[in-house]
């Protein structure tokens, strides 16, 4: 007889998620059973679009009861369990062929991929028992983290596909869920205080809430008492315990634990990665390098291990780069950063490091050429990040080039940036044209100020004044507008000013100092001889003149600003030159 598969779900208020879930799964199952535990929204209605077997069952704080109720309604020979915020991904293989291929299995562990919002492109892979024969013996147990237990372990197959994808949760959602879980777990533990699995779950939740101190005793106990028979729990328990120790700064213990367990699970990539991270934190870069190398060599760990995607690739490569950089092996570091980026173009930390490394070892121009040649400028996100980095480092021209090179300039935000980069790299015309078209769409005070500055640089005081007056109409922008007006009048008429009392106002002074800072850091010195920047030089002199001569407050602020600039260079030098700072005169 051909096996039939029933998708069994319990839902509540899932009108947003449910269609996606059912769409992803409906072609791969023969029957859908949905049990609603009390939705107040359109969930039942949506469910009925996909199946007639929609039931309601009152919520009694017991996940297992609800799930088992759903199982009762199933007629297929196999059961697939999904939550509404999950999706079935059969690209790597579907359910029917899996069952057909292993006719003697009673159940299967499927990989559940949980995206990690902090690390784009990465997820944690958990093996979960979600596919099992429809037999009365296989029922859920446990009010929370309910599980189906299959007693003969050989009867459970480990499938690499299909994959269940969990919807990415925002930090806030996760915290809320964790709080709810902790309450439920503590209630369950009150009845069964020594249950290591419950302790394991509780430890994980505490860790997730950033409380390694609470997590540690739970995880220690779970680690001690869960044996390899439950490798699905034991392996992650080790990793969470390492994380808890690390969170508490007990690095040596964490390293010892990694060493010990690495001997036991010699193909567990994540363990080498975790160990490397702890060693790195301790400053043992050379040893850390060996651990990360091992993680890369290991490749993907066997499916029964909980695995963070990337520990066998871009994450380890990035950390390798970082450790090698710390060791002064810069050329190697550079290569590892590049490899990390190639392995996962969405994960940007290696890009920041690579940028700084290239900037200092090869100079800005060569760094730009490198990024261009390596194709980074054709990745919109990387291109915008690089543009910002170049700008902050004082290379407005290269920042502009980054955006103009690739397809990045299409998006709105980067056009805004492009105005800034063009303005400060001396492409005043271009900046003004772009700003005008953007401003015609919507009011944007920063852009408006940029436009005024561009006009001042061009010496078009009349239009600059006009724009400044328009800016003044926005209440929040008054001080900036006044600053611009004062500046323009000063530039036009030498020492006379429009409204002398404006020059005393702290917001006006602050606005002008902000512009001055931008001018000093980013203003163009390029051009044929590096000297044709009269417009900018006039602007800068105008600002300093206005500040110095029209109010004691302005003069004081300007002097303070310059003093701070000198001091920040000194601090930077002291950091950069270590013991040789004694030589700074």
């Amino acid at each position, binding site marked *: 007889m051909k096996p039939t598969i029933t998708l069994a779900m319990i839902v509540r208020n899932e009108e947003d998620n449910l269609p996606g879930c059912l769409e992803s799964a409906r072609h791969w199952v023969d029957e859908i059973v949905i049990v609603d535990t009390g939705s107040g929204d359109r969930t039942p209605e949506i469910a009925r679009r996909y199946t007639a077997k929609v039931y309601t069952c009152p919520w009694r704080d017991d996940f297992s009861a609800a799930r088992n109720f759903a199982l009762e309604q199933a007629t297929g020979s196999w059961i697939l369990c999904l939550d509404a915020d999950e999706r079935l991904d059969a690209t790597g293989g579907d359910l029917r062929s899996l069952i057909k291929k292993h006719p003697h299995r009673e159940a299967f562990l499927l990989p559940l991929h949980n995206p990690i919002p902090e690390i784009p492109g990465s997820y944690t892979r958990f093996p979960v028992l979600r596919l099992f024969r429809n037999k009365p013996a296989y029922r859920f147990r446990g009010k929370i983290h309910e599980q189906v237990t299959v007693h003969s372990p050989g009867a459970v197959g480990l499938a690499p596909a299909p994959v269940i994808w969990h919807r990415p949760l925002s930090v806030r959602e996760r915290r809320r869920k964790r709080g709810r879980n902790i309450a439920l777990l503590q209630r369950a533990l009150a009845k069964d205080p020594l249950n290591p699995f419950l302790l394991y779950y509780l430890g994980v939740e505490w860790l997730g809430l950033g409380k390694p101190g609470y997590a540690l005793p739970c995880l220690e106990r779970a680690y001690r008492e869960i044996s390899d028979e439950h490798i699905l729990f034991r392996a992650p328990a080790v990793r969470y315990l390492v994380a808890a120790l690390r969170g508490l700064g007990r690095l040596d213990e964490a390293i010892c634990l990694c060493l010990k367990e690495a001997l036991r699970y010699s193909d567990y990539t994540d363990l080498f990665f975790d160990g490397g991270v702890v060693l790195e934190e301790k400053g043992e870069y050379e040893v850390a390098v060996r651990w990360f190398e091992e993680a890369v060599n290991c490749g993907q760990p066997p499916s029964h291990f909980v695995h963070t995607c990337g520990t066998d690739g871009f994450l380890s490569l990035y950390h390798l780069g970082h450790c090698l950089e710390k060791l002064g092996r810069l050329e190697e570091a550079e290569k590892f950063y590049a490899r990390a980026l190639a392995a996962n173009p969405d994960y940007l930390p290696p890009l920041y490091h690579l940028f700084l490394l290239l*900037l*200092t070892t090869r*100079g*800005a*121009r060569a760094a730009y050429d490198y990024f261009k040649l390596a194709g980074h400028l054709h990745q919109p996100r990387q291109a915008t990040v690089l543009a910002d980095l170049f700008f902050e*480092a*004082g*290379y407005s021209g290269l920042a502009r080039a980054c955006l103009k090179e690739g397809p990045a300039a299409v998006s709105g935000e980067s056009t805004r940036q492009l105005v800034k980069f063009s303005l400060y790299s001396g492409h005043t015309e271009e900046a003004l044209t772009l700003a005008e078209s953007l401003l015609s769409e919507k009011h944007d005070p920063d852009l408006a100020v940029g436009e005024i500055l561009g006009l001042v640089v061009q010496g078009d005081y009349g239009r600059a004044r006009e724009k400044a007056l328009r800016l003044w109409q926005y209440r929040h922008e008054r001080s900036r507008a006044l600053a611009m007006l004062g500046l323009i009048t000063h530039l036009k008429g030498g020492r006379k000013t429009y409204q002398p009392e404006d020059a005393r106002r702290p917001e006006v002074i602050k606005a002008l100092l902000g512009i001055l800072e931008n001018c*000093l*850091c980013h*203003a163009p*010195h390029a051009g*044929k*001889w*590096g*000297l044709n920047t009269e417009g900018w*030089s006039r602007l*800068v*002199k105008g600002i*300093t003149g206005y500040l*110095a*001569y029209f109010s*004691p*407050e302005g*003069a*004081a602020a*300007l*002097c*303070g600003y*310059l*003093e701070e*600039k*000198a001091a920040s*260079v*000194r601090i*930077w*030098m002291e950091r*950069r*030159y*270590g*013991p*040789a700072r*004694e*030589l*700074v*005169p």
Partner: protein
Amino acid sequence: MRFITDYSYTKWKVTVIVHILAKKANNRQGNFMAPRISLCMIVKNEEKNLRRCLGSAIGAVDEIIVVDTGSTDNTVRVATEFGAQVYFFPWNGNFSDARNASLERATGEWILVLDADEELTAEGREVLRRVVQEGCADGVEGYFVKIINYLGEEGWVETCPDLVFRLFKNRSDYRFRGAVHEQIADVILEKNPRARYKVAESLTILHYGYLEEKVQEKDKKNRNLSIIRQEVEQNPKNRLLRYHYGVELFRIGRHEEAAAELLRAAEGADPGAVYLPKLYRYLALAYQAAGRYPEALQAIQKGIDLFPDYADLYYYGGLVCLQTKRYARAYELFNRALSLPEPPVYYAPFAGTRGFRSYFHLGQLAEAFLNEEEAMRYYILSLRDNPSFTPALESIARLLRPQEDPAYAKRCLETLCDFCTPEANLLIGQILFRLGAFRLALEYLEKGTKGQQVKPEVLLWKAICLMQQERFLEALRLLDGFGPGHRLYALAQLNKLLCFWFQGNRRKVRPLVRELLALGLSSQTSAVIRILDGSLHRRKGPPVFLEEEGMSLLLEIIMRALDLGRHERVEALLECLAEECRRKCARPLGRLFLRYGCLNHAERYLALDLEVSGESAETFFLLGEVKEARGEYLEAQGFYRRASLLEPGEPKHYIKLMRCYENLRKGILQSIPEGYLAALDAQGNHG
């Protein structure tokens, strides 16, 4: 070279010493307790050195065996004068064979081995007997003794001590091995595994051979190298041999190969091996010379891990870091080198790594931070540690800016140093001349030449110094002293020409130009002379193209013209020069103009350089200095910023930036209305 002694009295001395030797030897014949010592040498064409060597040993040893391997000079006669037994051994390309021939003839219980370019110190002479007697009592088979190598380099001499195995018991199975770096210490250990060695540091040998090493012909070195390479091939496992091979390769400049051999020799070497510290030093030096700095630093780190008290390693590490602009690390390493105690002799420590050399480079470091005061302090420490270390003196003189304020510079120099000999005066005169401080240079050159026989170069310098003070007549008088046959004649004539050229005297320049061009000078020099000539004419000929050689001569002439304030001459010169040359030399020209305060010209040429060779930190920095000199700090800070972005490791950019901000602030404080100051004071912003 203060180490070369005057030999005019040697003959008389020799006779006396021989007499004493005979007496002492007679006395000792009855005393069978005193072990006899044989000095064994091999020589070839060493008549100059042998006297010094034998003179130092005679009386301290009981017999002298000299094996001559084919001298064609008076070596043998000198040896017999000292009562040596001379034997002949035809050279067969193997040092060990020759040495063993000398050992065959020795009858003493102990053998002392010296080379002709070495001598025993007076102290060594005295302690030799005692050392040998103690050796007999303690059952010592051989001694490592201290050798001080004298090295010569650009006008100063320095020392480098080391340990060598030169004194051992005379037994028929103790024989040398190795065709080039003949060894006996390991042979003795093979024959007699229980043999004990000791170090006799008070027994010191002075070695002068390296002073003349540069004279040593290259083919001789290559011959030695091929012999030792054969040996290495035959004994691939002998690390010591490979080490010597690596060192030889390093000496003749084959750095990459040297590094490879030394690295192989280091692999698995016994950490106690006497040569291992030196091996790491040579390894680092080889990598450094090959421009492979990361490897050099790695070798140094490895060496430091093994020999943490080896100052040379820190010193060379510091040098590599300085070269690669890792200032923080360089600073650390030099300071470490300075902090270390006297090292064991077998490290063969290079003189000054714990003193004047490290101080000197710390001075350079301080200059990189534009900290002249601190730099001066270090240079003074360096010079105090070694008064003959010219680079330190030159740096001190440079920091005093003797060209700008000669009186002050002189006062400082005289406080610091005692130029009591004519040589010292000449030296500082020459340094000042090089620095372009012609007035002060002349003063010292005159002091240094008073009543002395003057080298013709010094006369030429003096003439130039006179010229640079517009004392043209005196200069010409001095230059007239160089007759047509003199080797400096052309140079003297060129300077004569300059004398008239500075004054714009076309009539006098013309014949000199004709004469110089007829002398058959190099094409570049001739081209420069044609430019000089052409620049005096209103109608300029076609622009002249100069190569590097001609350009550097022209830059020197421009420098002197600027020093004299003859700007119009410089203009005219540059007009005669091909546009392409001006573009190529834009930066050095800009720098020169900046140095002599011609800011507009400096700016023009530096901007031209940016156009020609693209953005460079150096040019931005110089442009910053131009702006700074004009008091345009806002513009200056822009240029310094650019420079710092292009070369973020260079501290001087940041120092200049800080100064710009400070000067801007000072400028504002000076120019704001009076009434504001009170308000600023109230905010504590006056500083």
